[in-house]
């Protein structure tokens, strides 16, 4: 009797597996993808740059300032703050901007770079720290996740490393 019940259950399970297989491309794949999409996950700030703090309007273009990203206990990145210039096509041939990163009304860094007409051309830039919280960068491109001036699609992404310690807010 037990064998018979188990056999019936096994074939029912196998039939269900087949039904699941048929449903995969039409329903299930999308359903599982939606579940992942709505799970409240976000990309690690080392890659995404973290959350937006505010935007600064410069007329032709906008500067998006992100919250500083702190490494977790054993994370191998330096603390940094990301700023994004967009849209890249609207930027002048040479950008030199003094930017208030911490929102205290005073500029914290000067960022300067040339914008090549060719979007695929290499990009390099300089960052001059105007207060002790930030670290200056010279002729930087995409050295690391904490130090970069790169073109990413329609944006110029700049990441400025922060000094460790209590000088930071």
């Amino acid at each position, binding site marked *: 009797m037990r*064998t018979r019940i*188990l*056999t019936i*259950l*096994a*074939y029912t*399970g*196998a*039939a269900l*597996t*087949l039904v*699941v*297989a*048929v449903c*995969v*491309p039409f329903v*299930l*794949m*999308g*359903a*599982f*993808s*939606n*579940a*992942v*999409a709505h*799970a*409240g*996950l*976000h*990309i*690690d*700030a*080392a*890659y*995404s*740059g973290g959350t937006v703090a505010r935007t600064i309007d410069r007329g032709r273009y906008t500067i998006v300032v992100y919250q500083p990203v702190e490494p*977790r*206990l*054993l*994370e*191998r990145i330096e603390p940094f703050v990301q700023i994004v210039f967009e849209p890249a096509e609207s930027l002048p041939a040479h950008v030199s901007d003094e930017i208030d990163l911490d929102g205290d009304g005073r500029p914290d860094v000067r960022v300067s770079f040339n914008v090549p007409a060719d979007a*695929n051309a290499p990009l390099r830039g300089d960052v001059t720290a105007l207060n002790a919280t930030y670290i200056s960068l010279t002729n930087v491109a*995409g*050295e*690391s*996740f904490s130090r*970069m001036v*790169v*073109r*990413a*699609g329609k*944006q110029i*992404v700049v*990441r400025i490393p922060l000094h460790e310690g209590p000088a930071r807010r």
Partner: protein
Amino acid sequence: MASRSSALARPPAFRGVGRSILLTLPMALWSLLMFTPSFQHASGDHYIGAAAVILFMTGLFFLMMRTGETYRWRRIFFVALGFLFPVGFIAALVAERGTMSIPISRMVSGDTPFCFMVTPSIILPAAFARTVIFPGSILPTASNPHSIAIMIGLWFALTLVMGKAWCSYACFFGGIEEGFAALPKRRRLHRFITRFGAQLRLIPWAILVFVVLVSAAIFEPVYCMWLCPFKAVTEFPAVRNVETAIQMVVFIALFVGLVVVLPYLTKKRTQCGFFCPFGAFQSLFNKINLFEIRINREKCVDCGLCQTSCPTVALSKDSIREGKTLLNCMKCGACVDACKKDAAVWHLKGTPVAAKPERARLLFLYGTWALATMFGGSVLANGVHTLIGFLPLK
């Protein structure tokens, strides 16, 4: 080896042509259904690619029905998958960015296609910090359709049906080493592998535990960044400093050693069996999958042919005595085809062993081959389409 011995074990025609065609018909219709979108907005190359895949997948399924063999025909598909995936993938990368390397700018813009191999590494940070430690995007974008949500959804759906059989019907990386393992006639290092099989089988679990814990600790996909042999034939972080240069050397060394040289020498899938942490992770799904391979002790003569033929050493003397395969069995069918006594059989859990092995095989193959056609077929079609593009016809 396995196919030769299986040719001895079974008569050439296991099932009549008519019955084989009837059994193949659902799969032919499924293939058409899967590739109908390809026909709707197809160029000539797409049309040829999709048509070739429909014929290929349906033809192989017919041969499985006709001969009663699984491993030989599955291997043809799997090796084609393994070699056509990099063709399509690399061609797309080179066309888009001119190189196989991922510049850091693409990582920060979330344009890295998600790879299922990284799945175990992201689980703990996702569960405890809601953070995905991969430089992709959660939702698909115009520049990255292979988003994390899409790829995990696809992997999970396929895994529900296939379990560990993912490793022998869906994983295009495994196809590459299976291709190299198929090349030599002679098997080398056999004694070493037999003697140390138990220890070798533990390595993927050790690597799995290592990458899961270390990835969670340092918030980096450690396997992707340091250990994945297949970075050598897909994409890899652009060399920008000493660390990324070392990573590149590691990727190439692992690929040459584990995917080319050792499979060629041993006729085993050494990367899958003795290294791949994703394979170990996937083994866990064998527990919930209904299909398995069993050894019928009443027929078994302990000749060891099944053990020798297994590409991932998923059989041991003890497991054969118990009439079971080990947890890492990927249901490729090599042992079943190799067994001259028909003692190694397909089995549906819950039913008596060897009661209806062919029925269990059919139920397994319909679900698995259908999804292999859907997932692997699209990869094959893309590869064929790319190859046609290389021909000097245009």
